[in-house]
């Protein structure tokens, strides 16, 4: 191992001070965002744009949030298992090449490193293909396998770099002296390559615990990890609870490292015991607080957008029916489609938006509803029923609805906004935000020209693209996740976006206004539906009917700030929600709304035109 011998004299290039200075700067660079996210975990305001005073509230809330705790627990299980598998397997492979020169050595090594060249999304989609072909039930096992699979090449590259210079004669000498191969491995080889193995383990764990893309494809019932939880929150706002969890995770890991460090220094074990105990206690807390995943006797598996239902609401259902509700989250309709198309997902109730109901039912992936089991269906307002995406509501029941319009800062935008034209107004150059979404952005451009946002005529669509290209120099950012935050922080003055997120932002800042432009805009309806392969269809019907009860629907609306289609719930809502025009727009606005339809082949055209807009400079 490196002895550091002679480093004192060979210091001409990179004299100590400069080196230490650069290194210090890099550590600062690495930790600056960490300090920010830790600071935000103590911010009484939900929004990063303003400091609302010091609070420990988010820690208390996170500790009481079973979904976040379960996600943390799942991440720790998956990360540990994947790290053990990938590092062990990769170390074995590196040792194999070190001990023996295979005939086709280059080819074999290439086979081990090749997986690093494939983008993560491609690994994810292709693994889902194989799991589906093998008929594997998606869940913990598939997530661990997938994580081990996509990290093993990284681990191999790191271990191999260490082994490259390891002197084989040491092993041979030990063998000559009568050591057994196992003794040689543990006494000679492993200590020599240990730094490489540990470094590989650190990287694999870091890759696994932060992985979103692969996990989102291969996770199934009960295997929602922390990144899935976080990404699914993006649409409804990432809560500072996540910052609190991240800070705790970092601190407890740092404590464990400190303990290991103290032991390594030969300090007394008593000294190391304290940080180790605290670190382990904190990391173990989620296991104690929410238990180890075990299939309950009767479980309803719900696959839904984040923040679409309050824990209290679920608890009421659980108590009434004596069942457990397991919630997994997704962040796009397309993720839901992919999961249900692959089959074997194991969900009882899902929450597809309008056009995805059409796509799913056309492929026979939804179970026809038994309306006799839905006595509260009559609570739904008639104008949300019998839509083109699901005639007669044979497969779906409206759950919430909303619009995509413009929110703006009244202090900066002087004239009241009533038209999409405002997003093309050169006075606001560099202060405009558009949704990073092909259908919504092109839809806005089409509406501005008075054309349906479901147009499929090539010339109309190309004209819309040209409008968007002309608009691009005025646009500060394309963002379909935390657009309301960008507006609140003052980086933009006008933003296209979805109503529910803006409604929440308006509660933070009285200067924001939301309009549905006079030319018309998108209406979306999210629905509850039952997948064809649901395990407990009867329970699923009971759950859907439960959400249709007036007080339950009102509770749901209070939780998420999107509009409720439930007529009976309306009277139970507080005036500040019922009176918010972003949540419940006046009747004349409803006339101007249009549902996004699945356009089949034309989807590709929309994607291409949007790519052209995004790619232009």
């Amino acid at each position, binding site marked *: 191992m*490196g002895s550091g011998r002679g480093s004192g004299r060979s210091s001409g290039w990179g004299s100590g001070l400069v080196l230490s200075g650069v290194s210090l700067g890099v550590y600062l*660079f690495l930790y600056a965002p960490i300090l920010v996210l830790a600071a935000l975990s103590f911010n009484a305001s939900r929004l990063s744009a303003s400091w609302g005073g010091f609070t420990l509230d988010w820690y208390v809330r996170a500790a009481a949030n079973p979904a976040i705790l379960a996600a943390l627990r799942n991440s720790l299980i998956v990360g540990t298992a994947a790290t053990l598998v990938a590092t062990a397997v990769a170390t074995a492979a590196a040792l194999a090449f070190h001990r023996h020169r295979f005939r086709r050595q280059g080819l074999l090594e290439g086979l081990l490193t090749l997986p*690093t060249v494939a*983008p993560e*999304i491609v690994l994810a989609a292709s693994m889902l293909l194989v799991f589906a072909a093998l008929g594997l039930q998606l869940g913990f096992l598939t997530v661990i396998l997938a994580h081990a699979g996509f990290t093993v090449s990284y681990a191999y590259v790191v271990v191999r770099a260490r082994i490259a210079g390891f002197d084989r004669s040491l092993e041979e000498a030990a063998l000559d002296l009568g050591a057994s191969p196992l003794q040689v491995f543990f006494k000679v080889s492993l200590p020599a390559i240990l730094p490489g193995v540990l470094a590989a383990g650190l990287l694999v764990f870091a890759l696994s615990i932060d992985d979103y893309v692969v996990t989102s494809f291969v996770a199934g019932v009960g295997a929602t990890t922390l990144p899935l939880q976080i990404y699914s929150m993006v649409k409804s706002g990432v809560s500072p609870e996540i910052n609190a969890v991240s800070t705790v995770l970092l601190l407890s890991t740092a404590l464990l490292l400190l303990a290991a460090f103290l032991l390594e220094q030969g300090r007394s074990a008593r000294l190391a015991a304290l940080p180790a105990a605290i670190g382990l206690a904190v990391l173990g807390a989620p296991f104690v607080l929410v238990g180890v995943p075990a299939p309950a006797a009767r479980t309803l598996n719900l696959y839904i957008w984040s923040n679409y239902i309050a824990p209290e609401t679920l608890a009421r259902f659980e108590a009434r029916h004596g069942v457990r509700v397991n919630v997994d989250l997704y962040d796009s309709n397309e993720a839901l489609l992919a999961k249900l198309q692959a089959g074997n997902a194991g969900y009882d109730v899902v929450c597809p938006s309008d056009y995805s109901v059409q796509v799913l039912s056309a492929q026979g992936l939804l179970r026809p509803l038994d309306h006799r089991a839905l006595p509260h269906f009559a609570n739904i307002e008639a104008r949300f029923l019998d839509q083109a995406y699901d005639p007669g509501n044979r497969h779906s029941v409206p759950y919430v609805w909303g619009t995509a319009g413009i929110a703006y800062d009244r202090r900066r935008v002087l004239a009241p906004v009533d038209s999409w034209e405002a997003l093309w107004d050169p006075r606001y150059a560099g202060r405009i935000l558009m949704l990073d979404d092909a259908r919504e952005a092109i839809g806005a451009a089409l509406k501005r020209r008075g054309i349906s946002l479901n147009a499929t005529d090539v010339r109309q669509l190309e004209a819309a693209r040209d409008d968007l290209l002309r608009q691009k120099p005025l646009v500060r950012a394309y963002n379909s996740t935390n657009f309301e935050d960008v507006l609140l922080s003052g980086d933009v003055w006008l933003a296209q976006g979805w109503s529910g997120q803006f409604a929440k932002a308006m509660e933070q800042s009285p200067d924001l206004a939301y309009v549905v432009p006079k030319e018309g805009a998108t209406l979306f309806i999210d629905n509850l539906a039952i997948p064809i392969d649901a395990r407990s269809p009867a329970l699923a019907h009971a759950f859907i009917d439960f959400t249709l009860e007036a007080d339950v629907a009102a509770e749901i609306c209070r939780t998420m700030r999107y509009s409720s289609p439930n007529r009976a719930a309306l009277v139970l809502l507080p005036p500040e929600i019922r009176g918010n025009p972003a949540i419940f727009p006046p009747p004349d606005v409803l006339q101007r709304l249009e549902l996004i339809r*699945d356009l089949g082949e034309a989807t590709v055209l929309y994607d291409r035109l949007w790519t052209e807009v995004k790619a232009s400079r």
Partner: protein
Amino acid sequence: MKRERRIAALLLAPSLLLLLVLFYLPQALLFVVSLGRRSAYGGVVRDLSLDNYLRALEPLYLGILGRSLALAAATTVLCLVVGFPVAWWLARRVPARLRGALLALVVLPFWTSFLVRMYAWVVLLRSEGIVNLALGAFGLPRAELLYNDAAVLIGQVYGELPFMIVPLYVSLEKLDGALVEAAADCGASPARAFASVVVPLALPGIAAGCLLVFIPSLGAYLAPDMLGGGRTAYVGSLIQSQFAVARDMPFGAALSFVLSLGVILLLLVFRRPLRAAQAL
């Protein structure tokens, strides 16, 4: 010798088996998909056509690919320039007993969500952000730091730096200081000693680091979207949107094979110097 060969084969088998099931078989299936067509509802219609590959080679998509290569190359070079001094400092300057802990501190931030850390960068860089508040406090003019190429590069370097520092450290830590010393004793200037002794010996680590940074950078989508404001299309988001938005899996698959093929070609070009280095 035969026994040794068997042991080596046994050691190699688990990794190859794992990759066979979780990489090669899936990729083979995906290749079949890439020859097909998108069905009206976003499924896959089997076919044997190269249309998707021809489409992937259109100027629109090649331009996006080229820009992604440039971003990945810039990220790699910056990571190497910034990461090398840190790895050297860690491996050669820091007392041995502190090294493990300090290396772990490099990786530690990565145990939190990249998305959450990107949000933190937004808070740092935006118009009313922390950096600008600090600039203002010192009486300096404010700057628009967010939603441009520089911000994307900051995010990328931030996201990939440990993947450069760790392998560099691993190979520098075992480098024999006596060799550097000998070069100095023989009258080599520091620059010369660095170029002709240190770099060749550290090459396996440099190569590993560049590989681990360059390739994932090609698939970057979070930093371009969150810090770049989604104003530029990169191939990572493009492939992502084929699988996740347009539900055009055949075209997404073809795009990714074109990308992978490009990377493999690049690796083959650099294979010879790497081999030479590893043989040292």
